[in-house]
């Protein structure tokens, strides 16, 4: 019925091998489309066309230079909360069996991070200048 979509029983490693193959196939497909478009479409190069678009102005600065530091702060905060989530997911899966002990553990863990967020907030790290 749902032809070709019902998953068969298979080894654990095979499943992840499939995910990898799937990713490679998608990459291959997009690359094929790009090559095909390059072959079909016309190509007349000129120096004017090769300039970058800046609403008709000619560029003054080279964009490849160091970024403002505020991106760095947000990236750090993101990293902290991402790792927090990585710890919280296994806890959430088994929470039903953990009971009061698990609840208290989580409250302590999240509170520490909450204090960290409040500190970053007070220090102005969350302010986009």
């Amino acid at each position, binding site marked *: 019925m749902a032809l*070709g979509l019902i998953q068969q029983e298979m080894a654990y490693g095979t499943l992840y091998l499939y995910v990898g193959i799937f990713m490679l196939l998608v990459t291959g497909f997009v690359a094929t489309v790009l090559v095909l478009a390059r072959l079909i479409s016309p190509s007349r190069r000129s120096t004017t066309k090769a*300039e970058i678009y800046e609403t008709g102005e000619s560029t003054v600065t080279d*964009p490849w230079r160091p970024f403002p530091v505020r*991106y760095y702060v947000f990236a750090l905060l993101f990293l902290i*909360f991402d790792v927090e989530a990585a710890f919280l997911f296994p806890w959430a899966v088994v929470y039903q069996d953990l009971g009061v002990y698990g609840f208290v553990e989580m409250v302590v863990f999240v509170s520490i991070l909450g204090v960290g967020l409040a500190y970053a907030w007070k220090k102005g790290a969350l302010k986009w200048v």
Partner: protein
Amino acid sequence: MQTVLNLLEMEPIRFFIAFGAILFLVLNLAAILVMAERKVAGYIQLRYGPNRVGWRGILQPLADIIKLFTKENVAPGRADLWIFLGAPIALFIPAVLVWIVIPFAPGAVVADLNVAILFFVGVTSIGALGVIMAGYGSRSSFSLLGALRGAAQMISYEVPLILSLLGIVMLTGSLSLVDVVNAQGDTFWSWYFLPQFPMFIVFYIAGLAEVKRVPFDLPEGESEIVGGFMIEYSGMTWALIQAAEFASMGLMSAITTTLFLGGWQPPLPFLDLGQFNWFWFGIKTALIMFTFQWIRWSMPRLRMDQLMDFGWKILVPACLIWLFVTAGVMLIIPG
């Protein structure tokens, strides 16, 4: 006949058929969504939208594809070509790959990973990489600005996106999307959007930001930085980025449906269609997609600092507080 069918369900063959099916689904979804976007925009603004090609403009996506295939691909002279051309690939992978863990109907899932929710969260963050590649590889001021905004936005809204899923994981006790759908039952009041209503809202908003839709479309704010991170793309490279954008919008709708609106579960028990329950999955996903488009043509765009404030100072604390609430309630009322 039966032997052929059995052969098709053998493992490697089934996998390649599934790959073809998902690619077909994603490409058509992108084409139909582009079309729907313009039609919805038209009707919301009291005009017709595209209505010249075919019956009521139904063949418009086809015409667009033919046009884009025959247009020249211009790249800036100073661009880093490998990164520049790698960006469409990096944007396309998350839009296609996550579909393999979504159950379409009872038992119909390409790969039932037991860490499907983590897989979804991990793979969608490849999208931020694609945005950075597109902006940095073009070596253009506008595109770099758009890419940096996009990266800041996408990583900031990834935090509430991840944290809002914890309640569901706690209620289900599993990370597999098949288990999540099975746990939601075949009556609409048992789906997770009611017990987890605040997180449904948070997930929806964070999902909007994650797929860069209005009111969070700062990476490509037309009135400020024109095309944003994709400003230097043209022809098929641009079309692929655009297709990936629309496909990830469809993907986000499908994930929202699966997690909060019961996936393929029918709204009432007597509406159960058995193998054809993908119908319910499609209807719910289409409804969510429509709300995405509705919001796009009704809401003004946020400013960058408002956007970051909203993510970090409202959504993230709300997620943490709701985590306590869910955990506490589950402690008091077991099961």
